[in-house]
């Protein structure tokens, strides 16, 4: 890739529309690290939205036994089945450890939520072959590309002559 000078250089984030459509279309089981049980918290909004759009939400939060009707696990490593995406609502300095766990459990994508962009964590995920997205909300991107956000007057940047699928 042009501009890469060594292993520490982070390639630009892959957040073009085809890449996000591919990730959100194929990665259907989402572990949400730091998911809150409080209905008005952003993590709860996002997870509830994804759940209602057919995704399996796997809460990762040691403070609760169950959130949104799903068993909540203390750590990613405790989840007894495969996870496609690790979606993280934690403080930025915790990101590299979460990224290592995501790699360890065989996740296919590592997603840092809106406002979070830890380059080290991105490097860990990318080096292990995961799709890595940062500073984006999984709910907002889904709604942007698969309908919904448009109705809220948001500039989705989708220009197309095909019916939405």
């Amino acid at each position, binding site marked *: 890739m042009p501009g890469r000078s060594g292993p520490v250089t982070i390639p630009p984030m892959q957040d*073009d*529309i*085809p890449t996000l459509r591919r990730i959100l279309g194929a990665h259907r089981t989402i572990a949400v690290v730091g998911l809150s049980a409080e*209905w*008005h918290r*952003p993590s*709860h*909004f996002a997870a*509830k*939205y994804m759940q*209602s*759009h057919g995704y399996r939400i796997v809460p990762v939060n040691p403070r609760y036994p169950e959130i949104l009707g799903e068993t909540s696990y203390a750590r990613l490593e405790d989840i007894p089945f495969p996870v496609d995406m690790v979606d993280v609502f934690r403080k930025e300095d915790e990101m590299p450890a979460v990224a290592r766990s995501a790699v360890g459990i065989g996740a296919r994508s590592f997603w840092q939520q*809106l*406002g979070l962009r830890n380059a080290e964590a991105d490097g860990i995920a990318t080096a292990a072959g995961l799709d890595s997205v940062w500073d984006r*909300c999984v709910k*907002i991107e889904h*709604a942007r590309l698969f*309908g*919904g*956000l*448009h*109705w*809220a*007057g*948001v*500039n*989705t*940047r*989708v*220009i*197309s*002559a*095909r*019916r*939405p699928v």
Partner: protein
Amino acid sequence: MADRQFRPETLAIHAGQIPDAATGARALPIYQTTSFVFDSAEHAASLFNLQTFGNVYSRLSNPTVAALEERVAALEGARAAVACASGMAAETLALTTLLQAGDHVVAGGSLYGGTVTLLAVNLRKFGIETTFVDATDPAAFAAAIRPETRAIYAETLGNPSMVVLDIAAVADVAHAHGLPLIVDNTVPSPCLCNPVAFGADVVVHSATKYLAGHGTTLGGVVVEAGRFDWANGRFPGMTEPSPGYHGVKFFETFGDFAFTMRCRMEGLRVWGASLAPTSAWQILQGVETLPLRMERHCSNALAVAQILRDDPRVAWVSYPGLPDHPQHDLMRRQMRGASGLLAFGVKPAASGGPSGGASAGMAAGVRFIESAQFMSHLVNIGDTRTLISHPASTTHRQLDEAQQIKAGVLPDMVRISVGLEHIDDILWDIDQALARAVGV
């Protein structure tokens, strides 16, 4: 690979409208319905909690109106937009969402008359004070800021004063004080100026004007850039649980389109000045040709300004597209054209006519307007038709003379919104009306 950045001509036709999911309709369907069914009680709850996006009731959102909202947001290079019943509704929605009793606004002095009244009379009734300053002087905005100031408001191109706002300089003043800059970008339209690119935080439009473009339909739009830090301590309504919408924290939940969501869920929901779906559709027919029309509005207006400047029957001409306009260079830095509005004063006849002074100029201006053949005497702007008006006796008559001067309205001022008729015909009508007005 990075997504393509489409140009305005393409966005004006495509942004916000992909083929209809249900029918494949290529042109925009008019969703003429008040309400939308819920799939289940759970779906209804999620919609009311704002946990999923969807339509509930057309006072809040409607798919046809949404196409206009997204298209204007895209043309402005902004994050989101919400449409309203008129331009005044858009201003009112933006300001009442942001402000409460005890707050203060610093506003550019050369504003549309309805806006002056909104700020100086109507919002004042609710305990919101406004200080009007010289819109050409960024330092004057800074000097008027108080601890309780919560917004700076101005027009990117003043109507009818033709004053050009130094958007970047005033945005710097606003941001240095933790305030958003709200600008009315109606006269340039998103085609000629994108205030967000120069630092504006909220942009309002009267879509009635160039966006719709054909003098048929009222509408307004509030546009949000998506960059302002509402968590700076001055805007608890954006960060604290909303009593107006059952405890939602708008900024935390919606981030860079939080202001738009709050305008919609708190403001439109209770004030109710929503845009009708049919109106949104009519405005969008205009928007599709906006770049083509603005090109011609600009070239026709420049030709009119050049002719008037050299006409001995004309006392003065104000058009930012003329090199002698005091802000011509600023206009060129900020705008892709000077738009279709210009103002001039008719010079009373030197001899045999009424004596000189303001009243003579005013009388000559009125005679000019009454002598036009196809130029229409009315108070709108941004029509296909050439429109003429006398602001001192119409749009700005509610203001006293001092307020009129502050708004840039001189007694003899004639405003022309130059239309899309053939330029030779427009120049012919101006020439014959001038001849009748001054007897030469």
